[in-house]
């Protein structure tokens, strides 16, 4: 084979391989999902499946072709931060007068149905009224100290607040929704003050809704990491041991008994399980005293199984211990020990792996676990994993904290928080200001807890737990320890949630029921395949062998459009299907144009090779002009079109580019190969007598 024919084969085969490669995760995902779904109901099998395939499954899921909510069902919400309400709330309530409200109202009518920037419009209106911002908005003490133009400082603060409000609402919503373990939630900022949330597979829309609209709760709580916390871990183990261990037993025994028998059997089993575990627990403590290992002589798998059975909560934790601030942390084992085995003095740290986080949080939510917890202690988990996310797939770790149950201080005392840099070390940090009343209590708390840690908790998740260095009077605090400016920024956003309840309202909400989603996928896929088959058969019938070649190119076309969409992380929506239909129609048309031209040339008595060359050459200008017109027309749709229109434009753009490639390059390569093989005739459905 000459190098020229080689390159032609490459042109035909390479895109197919690339397309298959990009679509492989999609196929893999649906195959694995089916496998996984068949296991639902058998929790033990599901768990072992997740352990074995979880990582591959997550990988496939991320790289697969995603379907839009209109095709798969789910919930779509657009939120808007009400900047005017924010301004109203930032103003000193005592100074609010008629002028103030009338400027607000005027801005509201001006901006209600336009794209105008609300804050800019408001400030312009304010200036036009000749009033001073200083009359209504309090100037923070740090700005006062800085000097400069107070009007500018207030303007700057309002601007920061407006920008921060969107970030804050996003952070709060992200954290809350993550708590619900919804796979593939998409939260995006849209423009300057909107947030779009897409939630597939929602069971209870009402719950999500209240979740989104409740205001955030910011709290400061003292960190309590000591032997009592470890004792609490073991207490939780004891609560869970009976229940959690009994669950799989119920599943395996009660297959062929009646419902009543099933229940009583379960109770009986649960009871024996409790007795067993109680016995095992005492046995464990007994043996640990003698320093004997009850797991000795067992296989690794069996040990893991038993540890999980005996310590359903603690097995998820890894302990770290340091003698003092100066010494380094050492890992320690929590299994087969009791709280008294651990030193009273020292610094404890606990982490939970990201893969077990959801289970861990679920256990903490259980009413029986809550009841068993000491009255003054609460267990909370960090909002973000420790350090930077690892790229090699090693699991991330979340810090686990023991904190006092009653908040020492709630977030409404925070007046201002912003990221900054430490002058001496150039490390990122956050500056926080408090109200006078808050500052007094803050001074008491910090004064009594020097050297101890205080957790900053938003909605039950810890964002930072800085160590108190000294008594903070005056309400101005510096929080160091952030490892990056982004981290400091996030902490400032969180702290502001105390000062400022970002007022959000739902301006668009769409729910597609799962039954509609399922039905629309099934019928959509079926009818699309049928339509496509019809075209393939038609081309074969009308253009004979030529049609067969065109069909290969067409299939490649659809394969590459879908693969391209999957590869770029795009989402297939209903309007997107319209785009694929149009681009496929244009690909069919391109082939028809070429074949009609070839026939004309053949009828004119040209040789096969000449007819192929002429056919492609003459059809080329029409194909490129029509596809380019469409490609260019997608540009404004991509820039200014709203979501669905953009979905159409993306698939059309990808489709038209690929049509140019498949119809002209691939089909041509196939014909050239045929001509090069020495053929003098080729049936493209032309009349034989010509």
């Amino acid at each position, binding site marked *: 084979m000459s190098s020229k024919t080689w390159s032609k084969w490459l042109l035909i085969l390479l895109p197919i391989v690339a397309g298959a490669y990009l679509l492989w995760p999609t196929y893999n995902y649906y195959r694995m999902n089916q496998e996984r779904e068949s296991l639902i109901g058998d929790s033990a099998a599901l768990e072992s499946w997740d352990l074995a395939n979880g990582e591959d499954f997550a990988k496939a899921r991320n790289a697969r072709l995603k379907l839009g909510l209109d095709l798969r069902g789910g919930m779509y919400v657009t939120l808007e931060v009400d900047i005017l309400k924010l301004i109203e709330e930032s103003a000193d309530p005592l100074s609010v007068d008629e002028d103030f409200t009338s400027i607000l109202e005027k801005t509201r009518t001006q901006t209600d149905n336009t794209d105008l920037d609300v804050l800019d419009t408001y400030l312009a209106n304010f200036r036009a009224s000749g009033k001073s911002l200083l009359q209504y908005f309090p100037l923070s003490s740090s700005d006062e100290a800085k000097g400069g133009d107070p009007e500018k400082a207030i303007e700057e603060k309002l601007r920061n607040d407006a920008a921060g409000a969107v970030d804050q609402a996003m952070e709060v919503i992200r954290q809350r929704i993550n708590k619900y373990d919804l796979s593939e939630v998409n939260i995006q900022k849209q423009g300057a003050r909107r947030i779009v949330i897409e939630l597939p597979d929602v069971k209870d829309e009402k719950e999500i809704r209240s979740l989104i609209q409740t205001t955030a709760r910011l709290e400061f709580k003292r960190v309590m990491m000591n032997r009592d916390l470890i004792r609490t871990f073991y207490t939780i183990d004891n609560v869970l041991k009976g229940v959690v261990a009994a669950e799989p037993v119920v599943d395996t025994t009660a297959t062929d008994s009646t419902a009543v028998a099933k229940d009583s059997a379960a109770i009986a089993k649960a009871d024996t399980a409790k007795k067993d575990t109680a016995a095992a627990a005492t046995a464990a403590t007994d043996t640990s005293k003698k320093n004997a290992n009850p797991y000795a002589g067992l296989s690794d798998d069996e040990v893991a199984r038993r540890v999980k059975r005996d310590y359903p909560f603690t097995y998820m934790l890894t302990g770290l211990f340091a003698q003092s601030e100066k010494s380094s942390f050492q890992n320690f084992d929590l299994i087969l020990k009791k709280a008294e085995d651990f030193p009273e003095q020292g610094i404890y740290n606990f982490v939970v792996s990201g893969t077990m986080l959801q289970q861990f949080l679920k256990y903490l939510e259980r009413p029986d676990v809550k009841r068993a917890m000491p009255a003054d202690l609460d267990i909370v988990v960090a909002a973000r994993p420790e350090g930077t996310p690892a790229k090699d797939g090693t699991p991330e770790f979340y810090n686990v904290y023991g904190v006092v149950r009653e908040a020492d201080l709630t977030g409404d005392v925070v007046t201002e928080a912003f990221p900054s840099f430490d002058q001496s070390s150039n490390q990122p940090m956050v500056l926080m200001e408090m109200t006078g009343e808050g500052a007094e209590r803050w001074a008491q708390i910090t004064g009594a807890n020097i050297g101890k840690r205080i957790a900053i908790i938003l909605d039950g998740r810890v964002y930072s737990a800085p160590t108190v260095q000294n008594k903070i009077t005056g309400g101005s605090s510096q929080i160091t320890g952030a490892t990056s400016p982004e981290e400091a920024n996030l902490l400032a956003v969180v702290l502001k949630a105390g000062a400022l309840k970002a007022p959000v309202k739902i301006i668009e909400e769409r729910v597609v029921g799962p039954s509609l989603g399922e039905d629309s996928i099934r019928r959509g896929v079926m009818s699309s395949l049928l339509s496509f088959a019809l075209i393939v058969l038609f081309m074969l019938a009308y253009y004979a062998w030529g049609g067969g070649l065109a069909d290969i190119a067409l299939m490649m076309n659809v394969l590459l459009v879908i693969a391209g969409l999957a590869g770029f992380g795009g989402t297939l929506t209903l309007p997107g299907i319209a785009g694929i239909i149009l681009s496929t*129609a*244009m690909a069919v048309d391109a082939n028809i144009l070429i074949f009609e031209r070839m026939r004309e040339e053949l009828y004119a008595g040209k040789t096969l090779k000449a007819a192929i060359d002429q056919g492609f050459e003459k059809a080329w200008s029409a194909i490129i002009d029509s596809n380019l017109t469409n490609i260019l027309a997608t540009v404004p749709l991509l*820039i200014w079109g709203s979501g669905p229109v953009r979905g159409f434009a993306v698939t059309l753009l990808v489709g038209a580019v690929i049509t140019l490639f498949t119809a002209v390059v691939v089909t041509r390569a196939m014909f050239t190969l045929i001509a090069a093989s020495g053929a003098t005739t080729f049936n493209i459905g032309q009349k034989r007598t010509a």
Partner: protein
Amino acid sequence: MDLIKKTNIDFVSNRVAIFRASVIIALIGLAATFLPGMIDLGIDFTGGTQITVKFAKQSASADQVRAAVGEIGFGGAEIKSFGTTGEYLIRINETGRASEISADIVAGLQKSFSNDTVTLLGADNVDPKVSSELAFDSALSLFLATIIILLYVAFRFQFAYGLSAIVALAHDVVLAFVVSVLFNKTGLLNLELSINSLAAYLTILGYSINDKVVVFDRIRENREKHKGMSLVDLVNLSLNETLSRTLITGVSVLAALLVMVFLGGDVLEGFAFTMFIGIVIGTFSSIYIASAFLIWYSDRVQHKNVGELHTKKA
């Protein structure tokens, strides 16, 4: 197979009459659609709350559903049903809490029709602010896309060609719109104007411009090949030469769309129907509207000699 032989049909002699008739039909139709109550705007463009429910046993009539919804506390709700029996679209002129409303309505209907099973197919809640933005953005992007088409065709061919394409495209979209609005009144398919149906109109635009460019391309080629031939002859020759391609492409795409109209399900059927109508109209306009306008424009506005058709038989 070769169904369409070399033709020599006279497409141009009656151009003025056909063009006028077509434009008059489009204008009358357009005027008719703007009579009150004719255009059914979906909530994407009106704002409000819309809930779609399904009665598994189809036991409820539209009037019964209306009464039941009124009892739940949403008097004056608009109830519609399309094609599939047992499915109802409930529209309420209120925004801000779609999930609550939909949950209340599904629960209420289930209570009223306790021997049937009521499921929620979907709920949409669009703030009037969003809907006016959607309408504006859609109109803007559509307008700009049209301008780009005009510029590109003018650049690759001539200005007259670009203008002819736009006139034909406007004709296609208007007529497809008129047919959809009228057909929606039959209640067989849901053809309300929504942001999704906008994609169908964009598809019509895309297909139609493709069709026009193919004909223009042939005219451009023939102009070089047959120097001195009059424009009328060039147009007619090119239309005949591309006729086979025009029909074959059109028929195969239409057949594919027809499958979707009948089997595509709730989501695709309305969509495919609008495209089907649009492609029929677009194919017609490539032959009669775009070329007729091109000849008229060259003759009357540019004062070129377009000539008469040489009625020689093949």
